[in-house]
């Protein structure tokens, strides 16, 4: 009687382990993301500051044409006064001022000028990155019916995180395998679910010219922009890792002391 339940569970375990062996090339599931090495991985991970600045440049010059970054304010880019950013306050002020944000009503109560164009003003650090399109319908019209997603949380909003975003960016537009039909108006991307992606290949060698002189290969640009987007999704990562280290040390110390106290209390009872 003892053997039967054991035997049943053993059989079940064997059957499940066999599943890993049978493989067939299935184009309905995307290829698992490339495994990229990130400076912010691991318990002591930090964002590479130079990479963040380059990545921001890639976002600003390439991606922001279609993708909004609604949840990031200019002042978030600052590293002063305990900020989690990677520019000085002066640089942040200049970056903000280089953007045009929608202006409130003027003294006459108008929100558009004589031509019907919405009024704008230069940005200040308190402003958020203005979206490339005023609303979802305009965004879809400009992009063949597909909505380019906002990128503020994209790394946390996708299974595979930074590796996934990196993979679909570099994998976009590669030659499809023989016989694979790419849908009209879309591009082949083996890392994207369904393998047909609406976004045209966003990056190429020297899409931007890095101000720090780094060689702007496609892989470098992708690595930098994904570092920036990872920061945008998780600006508090460095603070979290820093505090976490102190907490772990304290908890190990406290657990050790509580263990010794417990043993001391129970000394005569064991």
């Amino acid at each position: 009687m003892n053997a039967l339940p054991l035997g049943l569970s053993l059989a079940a375990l064997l059957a499940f382990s066999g599943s890993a062996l049978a493989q067939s090339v299935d184009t309905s599931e995307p290829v698992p993301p490339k495994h990229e090495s990130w400076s912010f991985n691991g318990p002591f991970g930090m964002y590479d500051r130079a990479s963040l600045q380059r990545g921001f440049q890639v976002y600003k010059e390439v991606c922001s044409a279609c993708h909004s970054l609604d949840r990031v304010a200019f002042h978030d880019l600052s590293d002063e006064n305990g900020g989690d950013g990677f520019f000085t306050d002066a640089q942040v002020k200049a970056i903000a001022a280089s953007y045009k944000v929608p202006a409130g009503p003027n003294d006459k109560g108008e929100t558009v000028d004589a031509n019907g164009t919405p009024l704008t003003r230069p940005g200040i650090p308190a402003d958020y990155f203005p979206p490339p399109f005023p609303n979802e319908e305009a965004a879809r019209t400009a992009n063949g019916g597909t909505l380019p997603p906002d990128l503020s949380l994209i790394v946390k909003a996708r299974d595979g995180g930074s590796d996934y975003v990196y993979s679909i960016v570099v994998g976009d537009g590669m030659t499809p395998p023989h016989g694979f039909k790419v849908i009209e108006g879309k591009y082949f991307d083996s890392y994207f679910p369904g393998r047909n992606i609406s976004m045209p290949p966003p990056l190429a060698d020297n899409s931007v010219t890095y101000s720090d002189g780094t060689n702007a290969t496609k892989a470098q640009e992708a690595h930098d922009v994904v570092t920036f987007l990872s920061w945008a999704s998780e600006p508090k990562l460095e603070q979290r890792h820093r505090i976490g280290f102190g907490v772990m040390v304290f908890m190990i110390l406290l657990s050790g002391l509580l263990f010794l106290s417990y043993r001391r209390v129970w000394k005569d009872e064991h």
Partner: protein
Amino acid sequence: MADTTALEPTRRDFIYIATGAVAAVSAAFAAWPFIDQMNPTSAVLAMASIEADISAVQLGQQVVFKWRGHPLFVRRRTPAEIAESKAVDISTLPDPLARNANLPDNAPATDANREIKPEWLVLVGVCTHLGCTPTVSTPQSPQGEYGGWLCHCHGSQYDTAGRIRKGPAPQNLAVPPYSFISDTKLKIG
């Protein structure tokens, strides 16, 4: 039965004391985030400092900006208003202090201590009595007897340097921390 006489009381007590101390310190560190989260957020702090464009303000006109949730008066005084303010005897003022965040606390309420440039008066537009917004006095529509402001809530009257002259308000209108970035731009806060 085990004999429970203390073998070495000092060693036994030390472990409990050390554990208690580490636990107490951990609790204090753990409590801080729960207290600090109620402090103003970074979004609020981003608006703690504003830049105001004063190029369109006419002589004798007041423009109101919003700073840290309060009205901020920027008034371009006429030569007559400046002269009137300078002529006041400080010893007759209900509040003799300048109340200017750019100066030491004990600075007296002379006209010069109430602004950076005499032509431009920058004041926090909150009546020092109970917080209403005073109404500015203009030649077309005088408010109060001193040519400055009248607070309609309880009748406090301020002069052309924003100093309290009559009524229940105990202090002069506050001068916020500010500076001129250029002739037409102020930075407040």
